[in-house]
C-alpha cells in the first residue's frame, strides 16, 4: 500500500512518501517489554485502546499508526485528536485500514498527516473540496465563526 504524507499539519500539500523502513511495535508489546523494542520507530495503537495515559509512550516515536478496522469505525478520529491536541504529539500520525477518499479531509482535520492510501490524485482532490470549516479541530484552520468575527472587526 502506498503511503501519502502531508507537507505540514493542517491543509498542506499531499504527496507520496519515499518508503521508509519503519520498525513497528504494537502498544501491548511496547508496554510489556520496551527494552526489546528499542529500535522501533512506529507505535501501532489499536482503536479500542485508551489513549488517556499514552503521552509518555508516544513521545519517543517518530510515527504513531492508528487503525480503522472498517471505514465506518470512527474511534481513531477521537484518538488522533487526543494524541495531537492533548498529548501535544508533533510527529507523524498515520491512518491505516479503511481509509477512503471521502474521509481524508476528516482525518486531516483530526490531526492525521499520513495515510496508507493508493491514489495521490484522488487524495489531493478530496482535500480541496471544502474551503471552510464550522468547528475548531486539530488542524490550524480557524472555524467560520472566528473568521466572521475577524471580518466584522475589520469592517
Amino acid at each position, binding site marked *: 500500500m502506498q503511503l501519502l504524507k502531508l507537507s505540514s499539519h493542517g491543509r498542506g500539500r499531499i504527496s507520496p512518501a519515499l518508503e521508509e523502513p519503519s520498525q513497528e511495535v504494537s502498544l501491548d508489546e511496547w508496554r510489556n517489554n520496551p527494552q526489546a523494542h528499542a529500535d522501533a520507530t512506529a507505535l501501532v495503537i489499536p482503536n479500542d485502546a*485508551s489513549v488517556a495515559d499514552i503521552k509518555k509512550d508516544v513521545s519517543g516515536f517518530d510515527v504513531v499508526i492508528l487503525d480503522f478496522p472498517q*471505514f*465506518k*469505525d*470512527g*474511534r481513531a*478520529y*477521537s*484518538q488522533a*485528536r487526543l494524541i495531537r*491536541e*492533548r498529548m501535544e504529539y508533533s510527529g507523524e500520525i498515520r491512518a491505516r485500514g479503511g481509509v*477512503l477518499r*471521502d*474521509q481524508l*479531509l*476528516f*482525518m*486531516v*482535520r*483530526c490531526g492525521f498527516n499520513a495515510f496508507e492510501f493508493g491514489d495521490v490524485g484522488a487524495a489531493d482532490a478530496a482535500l480541496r*473540496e*471544502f*474551503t*471552510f*470549516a*464550522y*468547528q*475548531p*479541530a486539530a488542524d490550524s484552520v480557524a472555524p*467560520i*465563526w472566528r*473568521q*466572521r*468575527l475577524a471580518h*466584522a472587526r475589520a469592517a
Partner: protein
Amino acid sequence: MYRYDEFDATMVAERAAQFRGQVARRLSGELSEEEFKPLRLMNGLYLQLHAYMLRVAIPYGTFSSRQMRRLAHAARKYDKGYGHFTTRQNIQYNWPALVDVPDLLDDLAEVEMHAIQTSGNCIRNVTSDQYAGAAADEVEDPRPWCEIIRQWSTFHPEFSFLPRKFKIAVTASDNDRAAVRVHDIGLRLHKNAGGDTGFEVIVGGGLGRTPYVGHTIRDFLPKEHLLSYLEAILRVYNLEGRRDNLYKARIKILVNAEGAERFRGLVEEEWAQIRSSGIDLLREEIERIHAYFEAPAFEKLPGESVALNAQRDGNGEFDRWLRVNTVAHKIPGYAIANISLKPIGGIPGDISAAQMEAVADLADQFSFDEIRATHEQNLVLPHVRKEDLFKVWRVLKAAGLATANIGLVSDIIACPGLDYCTLANTRSIPIAQRISERLADLDEQESLGELKIKISGCINACGHHHVGHIGILGVDKKGEEFYQVTLGGSAGEDASIGEIVGRGLSSGDVVDAVEKLVQFYKSERNDGERFLDVYRRIGADPFKEALYAAA
C-alpha cells in the same frame, strides 16, 4: 429566520459539488453500489423498495415560503408531484432518479437547503419545538441554539463515523413538543432560581428496539458552554459506544450499561479538559446568531378580534378549526395556526406540490413568511393575526388542508412502512388510513380529546409507537402481517414507554381493536381525563380485558 452568509453558502455549494462528483463516479462504474452506499448515506439518499429516496433537511423545522415553493418545484420536476413530511421535521422525495439528484441538490442550494447529515452515523438534523418563537409558554426562542448546533455539527470531522446515528432535540417550554426525553441528547432551556436561562441536558433516550426515557446528567448548563459540553458527550460516545452490534450501538445502550451516574462522570471529566479550549462561541457570535431570530414586526393589536368572533358565529366548521387547530400566541391579537397533513383516510405527512404552494402563499401574506414542520408530520403558520384566520382557513379548506384534527385520534403518526421501506415488516399507511376512516366523525373525535396513535411497520420504531397513547407495531409472523398494540406511551414532558398489551392482531382486527379501546376509555373516563390519564389511573389490565374479551 437564519439567512446564509457567504460561508454557509460556500459550504452547501461545495457539498453539492462533492456529491455530484460522487454520483458521477457511481454512474461511470468507478464506484460499485457497495462503495457508493456510505457516500450517498452521508447525504440523505436511501435506496428503498422501488426507487431512491432523498431526505431533505429542514433544520429545526423552520423554513420560508420561498423554500416551500422550491420544494414544490422539486416535487414536480424530480418526483411524482408530491413530498412527504417526516417525524424529524424533514421532507422526503420518494421517486427521484439517481442521475437527477445532483441537479435537485443544486436547486435546493439556491434557496439555502440541502440534504447534509439527514442519514448516516453522524449528528443528524437538529429538531425543535414547532412553535418556537411564537409559543406563549416558552422561556425564550430555542432556535438560535439549534442553529449554533447545526453549524457546529455540520461536517464535524471527529463525529462523522459514530457507532450509530445521533439525534439532538431542543425545547424551551415546560410543555415538551420536541420529545426531548426520547432523543440521544435532549436539551431543555429553563430558568434557574437566579433567573438565568440554561440547559437541562438529557442523554440516552430513544425508541427503536430498546426504548428508553433519557437521563438528566446536568440540571443546569450555562448556555455559553453548550458546544463544549456536547463535544464532551460525543467524544465519550465515539470512543466508548458499542460497535460490535448494530442494535446495541446507540448512546442509550452505553448510558444504561454504564449507569447514568458513571456516564455523567465520564462526560464531566472530559468536559473539564476541553471547556476552555475554544470550542464555545464568543459572545459576539452568539449575539450575531440570535439577531437572525429577532421577533418579526408584530402589530399592537387587541387580544380579541371582533371580526373573528363574528366570523366564527354560525360557522360551525370554522369554529371547530379554531378550537382544534389554533394555539395561543405570545403576542396579543395573534394565533398559531396548525395545518393538518392528516386528512381523513389520507397518507400521514403527504402533501402535493399545489398544496405546498398554497401554504407558501399563506405564509407570505399572513405569517411573516414563516412555515414550520412538526415532528407529528403537520405544518404550522406560526404568526397569524386573529383577524386573518378566516381568510387563512378558507384558502386551506379550498386546498384540502383544513382538517380540524390536530392532537386528535386521526392525527396519526405513521412510518412509510412496507409501501416504501426496505426495513419494514408490515404496511403502516393503510392501517392509519383505515383507523382514520373508522373514527372519522369530527364531533366524536373532539369529544375524545387528545389521543395520540402512532404506527411503526417494524421494530425500528420510526412511527414512534413506543410513545403513542395507543401504539401499533407491525410484526411479520411467517409471512403474515400482525400488529402488536402498546398502551400508555408519551413523548411529552411526562415521557413514558408504552406497554405491550397482549397477542398480535391481524390487519383486519387491529382497527376494531383501536375502536374497542377508544370506547372503553369513554366508558371509564371522569370529567377532563384524557385517554392517557385514564390508562395511568386504572392500569393495563382493564384495557386488556376490554380488548380481548370475546365479542
